[in-house]
């Protein structure tokens, strides 16, 4: 018979829409509106899981998120581990499986979409029970207030007050600073395989509320007794919910076991639905009880309750419905920073004040809850090892007593010793039982023992939901230059530099990276080559005090720079270590253009603003990022002048008219441009800047103009080789935050005058002023074909000997060089400049490679090539 435990007419399920699902190896039917738990119970299935440690059969205990027992694995339509049967809505094609404490993850990627949204309201009400609806109606009545009412259940026919935005299937999971709450909305789960793919499966709501009303209700508690984990034993309120909401009878003959009066309403209603009910009340003074002053001392049945021993009698029952009172749901309140106080009458915690604008109403504030005290704890007995306080973690009274017996006094220690309260339900139904057991064992009170801290999330949230839409290409912004499409079409691989995508090299047919870079380097040294340098940071610094300002930030003097001239500059952090480098060009008397490294553009601008605003507000200087105002193309090589002359016929490009370290405004390829004669390769070079929207056109024009000269686009790898051959350091590669300008051989860039610059004082500290610091030097392997690994370490002796082996430094950069006809490296080496000419050894994975120390400037040390 299908659904033998379905009551003929009670409940709110839609009997016109039967649904077929599979649980374990059984195919069953339920109705639209069922949870997996209600559908299973309708089919008479109580045993739905095994316990994690002891492997005991476990059933369904609750009808909601607090479920401590019925944890299942979803297998289809897409695997999801560790969901409570009480919260999974049934749909056609659902396949679920009983679990023993651990779920499993799908090996295939989750193709579902996720999403997040911000929301603002004056009033947020959590929980759409009677108290929540009343609070929402109240709030909505005040003019103009936006009221959001959040409820974890599917839409119900209950009345939504006018002007209230209702979010159903939505659970508030976290309550953070300044009334910021996060909720998870389950949007398509209940549709199963029919869920539209483009719709987000779950949506994260980030809600900022003026004030919050928590109408989160209360969780019913178990009363501990031997074998209280047997399937068929559940909370009395849950049995009532299954009848009222789903039309499901949890059994035919039930024992209601209670310490409070709510049980009698449950008993009456179940009797009305045809269930035989016996009420056993732990209180002696319980006139309505069939068995007053009763203790449940045993349970019959192995995989399902078949009977109980109570009050010295044995009863045949197929369900035991327990109520040990109620604990207000104050997880969110506690997360908000709300204080809790223990109320003896309720045997539970109540709200006791919060610095945030939050109020608690209804059962969550204890309203209407029976004042029955904590659940009665059993006297110590042989059955303690079968009397559970935390079902999901298999924690028994005996285990808790063992913890206190071992010497533990804090409930936090007991929790960690026993693992009580750490499972899927985070102790929603067990927390108080654990505290009560500890209190009983220590002869103390639950009030003194307290409970462990409530932490977000209130219910488990899938990783993907919290990741939202920040996945795949949207995981992080990819910053593109205006010439990106060209690089892409040309087949360049890209290097991530911060968020930027930079063309790495441009392989021709059949070329690997090494071949491409060799070709690109040769072109730059012997012909003409070009690179997209648009990612360089650019800052417009203007104002009457701009020169003075730059003098304070750079190690060298900028205020003396002539209009039309450019100077290389280094900045230090306060600790004297190199922060960034770049060029400074003087545009007018009170205006400079500063360039920064690609990675530090934002940091340098922030640095400038911080100094200007917080230390030197009297300086009249304004800094503006123009990084993306300008596209920059570096035109490099002995043939660069010819190509430039061709595209900029009005620009005098001869050495005298346009010398090194000067800039000129010009029309280049018909585009308004600013051309800088600066070089990061040692070759004759121009950096041509045009408005970003003209970058692509400039690039194409240069490619065309240089075609007959064999103009060669090159990427960041070639740029790195060319600069390394010249000994130009790259901040972040040849430096690591422990390197001073002098360490890099940039002592010449430190001004001779005593005028302060940021970081100067640090350079004279005892350790920073040592002469035997690590210096940037060149290394030439004895074997000119051998390429050192970047990161290889340098030692002065052979053999290595046993560790710890003292070392002198490490290789920061290493390349094969077509210009040098051999490999070379840059390295930071202790007393490096004093070791030039010495034989040292590079060590990689224990092997030793002999190298000679040289100056870090290996190519064209005289600087003869820069004029072409």
């Amino acid at each position, binding site marked *: 018979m299908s659904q033998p435990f379905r009551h003929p007419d009670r409940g709110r399920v839609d009997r016109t829409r039967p649904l077929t699902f599979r649980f374990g190896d059984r195919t069953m039917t339920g109705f639209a509106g069922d949870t997996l738990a209600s559908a299973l119970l309708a089919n008479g299935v109580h045993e739905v899981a095994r316990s994690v440690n002891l492997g005991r059969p476990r059933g369904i205990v609750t009808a909601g998120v607090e479920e401590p027992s019925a944890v299942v694995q979803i297998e289809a339509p897409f695997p999801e581990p560790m969901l409570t049967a009480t919260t999974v809505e049934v749909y056609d094609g659902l396949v679920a499986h009983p679990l023993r404490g651990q779920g*499993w993850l799908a090996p295939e990627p989750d193709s579902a979409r996720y999403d997040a949204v911000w929301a603002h309201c004056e009033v947020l009400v959590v929980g759409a029970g009677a108290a929540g609806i009343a609070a929402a109606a109240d709030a909505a009545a005040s003019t103009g207030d936006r009221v959001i009412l959040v409820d974890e259940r599917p839409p119900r026919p209950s009345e939504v007050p006018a002007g209230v935005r209702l979010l159903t299937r939505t659970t508030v999971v976290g309550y953070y600073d300044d009334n910021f709450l996060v909720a998870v909305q389950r949007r398509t789960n209940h549709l199963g395989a029919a869920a539209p793919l483009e719709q987000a499966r779950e949506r994260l709501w980030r809600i900022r509320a003026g004030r919050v009303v928590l109408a989160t209700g209360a969780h019913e508690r178990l009363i501990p007794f031997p074998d209280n984990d047997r399937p068929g034993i559940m909370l009395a309120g849950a049995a009532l919910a299954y009848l009222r909401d789903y039309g499901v009878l949890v059994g035919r003959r039930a024992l209601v076991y209670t310490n409070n009066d709510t049980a009698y309403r449950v008993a009456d209603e179940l009797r009305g639905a045809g269930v035989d009910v016996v009420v056993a009340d732990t209180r002696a003074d319980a006139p309505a009880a069939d068995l007053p002053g009763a203790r449940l001392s045993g349970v019959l049945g192995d995989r399902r309750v078949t009977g109980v021993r109570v009050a010295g009698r044995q009863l045949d029952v197929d369900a035991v419905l327990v109520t040990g009172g109620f604990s207000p749901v104050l997880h969110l309140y506690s997360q908000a920073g709300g204080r809790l106080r223990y109320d003896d009458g309720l045997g539970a915690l109540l709200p006791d004040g919060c610095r945030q604008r939050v109020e608690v109403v209804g059962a969550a504030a204890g309203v209407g809850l029976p004042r029955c005290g904590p659940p009665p704890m059993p006297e110590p007995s042989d059955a303690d090892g079968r009397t559970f306080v935390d079902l999901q973690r298999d924690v028994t009274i005996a285990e808790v007593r063992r913890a206190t017996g071992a010497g533990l006094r*804090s409930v936090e220690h007991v929790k960690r010793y026993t693992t009580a309260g750490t499972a899927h339900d985070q102790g929603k139904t067990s927390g108080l039982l654990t505290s009560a057991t500890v209190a009983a064992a220590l002869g103390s009170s639950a009030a003194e023992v307290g409970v462990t801290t409530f932490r977000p999330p209130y219910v488990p949230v899938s990783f993907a939901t919290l990741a939202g839409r920040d996945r795949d290409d949207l995981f992080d912004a990819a910053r593109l230059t205006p010439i990106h499409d060209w690089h892409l079409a040309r087949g360049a691989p890209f290097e991530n530099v911060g968020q930027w995508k930079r063309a790495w090299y441009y392989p021709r047919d059949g070329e690997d990276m090494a071949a491409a870079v060799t070709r690109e380097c040769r072109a730059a040294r012997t012909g003409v080559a070009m690179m997209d340098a648009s990612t360089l940071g650019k800052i417009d610094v203007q104002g009457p005090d701009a020169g003075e300002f730059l003098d304070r930030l750079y190690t060298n003097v900028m205020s003396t720079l002539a209009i039309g001239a450019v100077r290389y500059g280094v900045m230090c952090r306060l600790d004297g270590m190199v922060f960034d480098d770049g060029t400074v060009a003087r545009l007018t008397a009170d205006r400079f253009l500063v360039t920064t490294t690609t990675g530090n553009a934002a940091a340098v601008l922030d640095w400038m603003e911080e100094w200007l605003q917080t230390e030197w507000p009297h300086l009249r200087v304004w800094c503006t990022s123009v990084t993306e105002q300008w596209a920059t193309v570096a035109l490099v090589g002995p043939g660069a002048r010819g190509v430039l002359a061709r595209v900029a016929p009005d620009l005098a490009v001869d050495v005298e008219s346009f010398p090194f370290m000067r800039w000129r405004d010009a029309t280049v390829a018909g585009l308004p441009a600013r051309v800088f004669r600066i070089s990061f390769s040692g070759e004759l070079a121009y950096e041509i800047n045009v408005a970003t929207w003209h970058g692509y056109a400039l690039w194409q024009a240069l490619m065309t103009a240089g075609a007959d000269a064999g103009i060669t686009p090159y990427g960041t790898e070639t740029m790195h080789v060319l600069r390394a051959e010249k000994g130009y350091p790259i901040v972040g590669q040849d430096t690591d935050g422990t390197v001073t300008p002098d360490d890099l051989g940039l002592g010449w860039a430190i001004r001779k005058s005593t005028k302060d610059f940021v970081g100067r004082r640090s350079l004279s500290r005892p350790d920073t002023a040592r002469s035997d610091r690590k210096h940037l030097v060149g290394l030439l392997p004895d074997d000119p074909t051998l390429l050192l690994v970047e990161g290889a370490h340098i030692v002065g002796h052979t053999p290595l000997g046993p560790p710890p082996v003292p070392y002198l430094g490490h290789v920061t950069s290493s390349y094969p060089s077509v210009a040098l006809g051999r490999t070379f490296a840059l390295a930071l080496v202790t007393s490096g400049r004093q070791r030039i000419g010495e034989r040292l050894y590079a060590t990689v994975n224990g092997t030793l490679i002999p190298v000679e120390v040289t100056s870090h400037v290996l190519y064209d040390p005289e600087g003869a090539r820069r004029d072409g």
Partner: protein
Amino acid sequence: MSWVPEQPDRVWRSAEPKRRYQVVIVGGGGHGLATAYYLARNHGITDVAVLERGWLAGGNMARNTTIIRSNYLWEASAGIYEHALKLWESLEAELGYPILFSQRGVLNLAHSPQEVRDGMRRVQANLLAGVDAQWLDPMEVAEVCPIVNVSPQLRYPVLGATYQPRGGIAKHDYVAWGFARAASDLGVDIIEHCEVTGFDRRDGRVIGVRTTRGEIGAQTVALSAAGHTSVLADMVGLRVPLQSHALQALVSDLLLPVHPTVVMSNAVHVYVSQAHKGELVMGAGIDAHNSYSQRGAVHVIERQLAAAVELFPVFARAHVLRTWGGIVDVSPDASPIVGLTGIEGLMINCGWGTGGFKATPGIGWCYAHTIAHGQPHPLNAPFTLDRFTTGALVDEHGAAAVAH
């Protein structure tokens, strides 16, 4: 089914404070307990009290993500962490306590050419320092940890990783309890719910502490209070270069074994292992602002999980069960501060940032030596306070970054 081992029937002895001790250790976390243990075991100093203001080992010891490794960049760091790792390798037998030490290996992923250089550099430095270290290419990463997404299509693809096979995890609480019980057995007094409210001084020298359970005299007071060090140091007018920040962590629901090792990625700010019971244990970034709140902001968690799902697509439908924050004490060079303070009778051990747990036995050993001899142990000698004057920093930002 892997489940936790049976817990011992006996833990530490809860003591009442005496009037005075030879050594009072302020802070009953892993470091304080290990220090007490090694004071007794290595130096025969058993007249020791460990004062804990709350429940024992309830601070960072209870909140960290339990990663153990020694592959730090600089010789000084590798020295002390490797000493710790060697002690970890025999600690279970030493303490007679099941600490679930599991050497499942630690991967540090590299996502940019610069991270590849930095990783290779660290591997070579580690090998010279006697630390086991390997460089793995992406395919080798996938062999060690098949669930890592090594597709070059990732926004920040995995370009390789450093690998320390001897790294791993242990069960934090059990480590603390193991040290507590062993120290207690050797005569150390462990005193919980005893908060230090001030210091007693005579002629400039610290001669004891005032606590919520009375005054306690001491020849040496040894601070071991991690994120709360500044609060204590302020009481004696000692200015320590520390800032306390919230570091967030979380656990998932219990899963069948899926993740065989420990994976850390500084670039995308995530690190994850799967603990013995089956839960994924994850850490994220440090909140930028100072905080003593032991909770963090949810946007950090969101970002962390975006990174986790990118790197481990298999994690998409794992669930976050619980999030929390620890308070990490961060020094300017991301290295610890250990040793003398310039105040007679007062020693300091702090600034471990995110590295505290993995150092536990090592620093306990060395701090005990420092206390017993009044001079730093050679392994903690580089970590003096005066390096912030001379500039001889041990800058682990590059290698430690956010990390752990």
